[in-house]
């Protein structure tokens, strides 16, 4: 099958369309992030999370109302998978106490229910601080090392393009987490696995960008007289088949993870799906145009 064999789309000449789309997405994301904010999972906030099974037919809102008084705080209750419920509370109860309260309340308030605890997480508030710090260091460290690596392998304009694309991807993915939280039937809270997903997105998006840049470098060495934006556009087209194939296979597997990977991985695989799409888009519509703009500016300054 050869779909993009003779591809010669005008990506760079039409880069303004990309700018408009990206700007809208970025504005929406930043808007939502600054107003709605992100929902922090217990990893970064501290608290207790209890998953009970065997509660078919119970409505999350009813259970929440029943649990509010005994747990002494405002617990969150969500569906977990098809038959379970997830109870999240920030009180500093001992794990055992919280478990007993949840079970006994559900048993007494809903006749016939025989809840069973299948998963409990308790993260102390100070430990959550530590985890948050660790996550922050990891993200910053990853960005710094990647920037350095690109700087060594390519020149600084390429680095700027790649990093712009990364910031773009992570901001929009975070933004989607913020916008969609509460609107989708699964949890979109920020926790350690979502951070891991973000870093993977960073790696993936970069992977995509590097392939295009690699070709730009190769072509510009071959065609020294050609205009730079033509070279970039041609490189994007040359690698388009590969970009689409790899994105497709990766999208296939992350979508499978989302649907079959179980409830625990929902947020994680959702972040990956969004990230793969945005990452592919950004290597064509953000990283490469930024590279071209920077080059133009230099040329103008020289002229």
């Amino acid at each position: 099958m050869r779909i993009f064999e003779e591809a010669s789309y005008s990506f760079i000449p039409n880069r303004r369309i990309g700018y408009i789309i990206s700007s809208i997405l970025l504005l929406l994301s930043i808007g939502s992030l600054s107003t709605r904010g992100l929902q922090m999972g217990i990893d970064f906030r501290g608290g207790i999370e209890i998953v009970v099974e065997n509660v078919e037919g119970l409505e999350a809102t009813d259970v929440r109302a029943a649990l509010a008084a005994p747990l002494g705080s405002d617990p969150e209750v969500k569906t977990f998978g098809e038959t379970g419920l997830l109870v999240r509370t920030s009180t500093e109860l001992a794990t055992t106490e919280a478990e007993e309260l949840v079970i006994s309340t559900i048993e007494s308030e809903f006749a016939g229910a025989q809840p069973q605890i299948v998963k409990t997480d308790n993260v102390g508030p100070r430990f959550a601080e530590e985890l948050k710090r660790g996550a922050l260091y990891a993200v910053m460290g990853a960005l710094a090392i990647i920037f350095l690596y690109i700087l060594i392998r390519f020149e600084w304009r390429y680095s700027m393009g790649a990093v712009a694309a990364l910031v773009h991807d992570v901001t929009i993915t975070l933004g989607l987490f913020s916008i969609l939280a509460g609107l989708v039937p699964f949890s979109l809270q920020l926790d350690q696995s979502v951070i891991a997903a973000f870093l993977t997105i960073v790696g993936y998006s970069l992977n995509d960008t590097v392939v295009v840049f690699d070709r730009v470098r190769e072509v510009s060495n071959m065609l020294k007289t050609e205009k730079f934006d033509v070279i970039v556009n041609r490189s994007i087209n040359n690698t388009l088949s590969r970009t689409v194939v790899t994105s497709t296979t990766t999208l296939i597997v992350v979508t499978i993870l989302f649907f079959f990977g179980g409830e625990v991985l929902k947020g994680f695989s959702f972040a990956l799906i969004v990230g793969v799409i945005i990452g592919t888009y950004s290597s064509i519509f953000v990283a490469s145009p930024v590279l071209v703009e920077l080059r133009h500016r230099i040329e103008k300054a020289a002229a």
Partner: protein
Amino acid sequence: MSIAQVRLGATVPDLPRHFTNNPTLMKGNGFKVFTTIAFLGLCLWSLFPSFQSFYYSQKMSDMTAEEQAAYMDENRQNIQQARSESLKLGLDLLGGMHVTLEVQTGQLIGQLATNRDSTFDAALKEAIDRSEAAETPVVTAFVQEMEERDPNIRLSRYFRDEDDGITRRSENDQVVSWLRDQADEAVTRGMEIVRNRVDRYGVTEPSIQRKDDRQIVVELPGIDDPDRIRELLKGTAQLEFRLMAEPARLQQVAQRLIQYYEPSDSALAAAQTSTVDTAAAADGASEEGTALTDGTQLTEADTSEQGTSLTGPDTGSDAAGPSNPLVEAVQQFLPQGRPVTIAWATAQDTSTINSLMADPGAARIIPGDIELLWSAAPVASTQNGQEIYSLLGVKRQAELTGDVVVDASVEFSQQTNEPSVSMTMNAEGARIWSRITGANVGKQVSIVLDRYVVSWPNINEKIAGGRTSITGLESRQEAQDIVTVLKSGALPAPVDIVEERTVGPSLGEASIRAGFISVVVGLLLVALFMIMYYRTAGIVADVALLLNVILIFGVLAGFNATLTLPGIAGIVLTIGMAVDANVLIFDRIREEQNAGKTLRASVSSGYEKALSAILDANITTFFVGVILYSFGVGPIQGFAVTLMAGILSSLFTAIVVTRLIFDYMILERQMKVSYG
């Protein structure tokens, strides 16, 4: 110089033919073929125990409980070996508990101080708050706080430890480094205590690791009672010195217990069999050969006697009649030469015996001043390798508690180089110790930690000076263990659970299923897509992909990594991303073909030209893996590990293995390979 030589070598005319221009080229690939086969072989070899373990568990799942036990006994060694070498599953797949404990070193400083004042208390409180807010060690924060309050402060005002040379005249630096050592030791001791408790709970393959300066990470697979574990981990260790039950009374207790559980008709027989043993046991030789002496005098120990016999009163097991449950569970009653041991039993029988003893009727038989406690360590083993523990009769009343122990250390006899334990008590403890040992010379005394008997040496003489020597130990390890216990007596600092994650076995199973389905479906769909897009070349890429998955699992098993749910997600993700290298290569080959090159030339330059992009793209993702690994905990690290393993093996399969296959197809078999 060396470069010149190499180039010279390459142009030597009479080089063997296949090094220069062999038309088939396959012989030149000999090294690649060898490495591929070697890698694959290595991976399959390291995966073999996993298959074995899976086979055993499948086989056993079809059996009844009794058949299982019998089968387990028969193949214990094989099964255990297969299990210990097979691919480890993380707690999120297996079910279990992950707990992070934090030793409150701040409070330790307060406990170590001999005369606290208001400045000290205020500084310590500030220091604890500060070290919690920012990640400074509490000792450092404390010293800074003290110096802020009084630049000329002498820390030696507050601390004294003659053994470690901390006196009124000690410099601040000296005190600070001593405090650091104490804080560090507190965590080490905390870890030992936790390990002891966990071992006693009977968790299979627990993992206890130290994380940064004061955290301990405990991983316990397959826990069915998390509540008890929480209590176990948080509770303060209680070290006690107790006298033993009188051997004659212990015999009576044993007989009456057996009778209590005897099905009525054969009660008499059992009572008779047990008296045979008790007669011999009554002369009261020094159990285990350990002994307590004053100072450095040594007692020769005779520890050759190891109880491996499996005699127990035979209550007609071939007759179909009811049997005595207590007799069934115990390996041997009142073993010979061990006057304070009521019974021997294997580790797996201890819980049965505990519940039999807890029965109200049985509990009434045990006198109020006597308690039956298990030995902390095994005393022997059965022929098929099961460890045997002693059930000992000790006095309920503790004579002394662990806080009187000031110090303990391992010492070696200058003449025989035998290990012994030297223990020092404070003045008050020494006074009571002297009275107890004086009144009980020739008898045994037990060191009890958390209701488990660590050691029960014979008292050789009255010990007056507070310095006691425990001799006749079997190994340096045994001596070290006793020292650890003695020092841990009063847990130096409180321990908090700061993080806890528990996954039930049912959710774990669901996760394994979900992961398995994801891997299989992902592999199938990606493979189909590749064939659709690249035809023959797609099939070759799929072979590489399959090999890649085998290699990842093999590498994980070989490096003893743990497979977690995010780890499986990493493998699934790798399946999608691993084809990237081949996609880059195949697209390049297509381009070369379009430019009019021959198949052979296209393949060769396709691989060559794609390499730089492949490496750049993979190195960056690998970096992300490294960073994830170094920051993450448990499951996230599992993800990072599979991601990194996946990158490495996909580079190998995509670049080396596919090239080999194409060389074979194109050069050897002269096939026309379609790149779609």
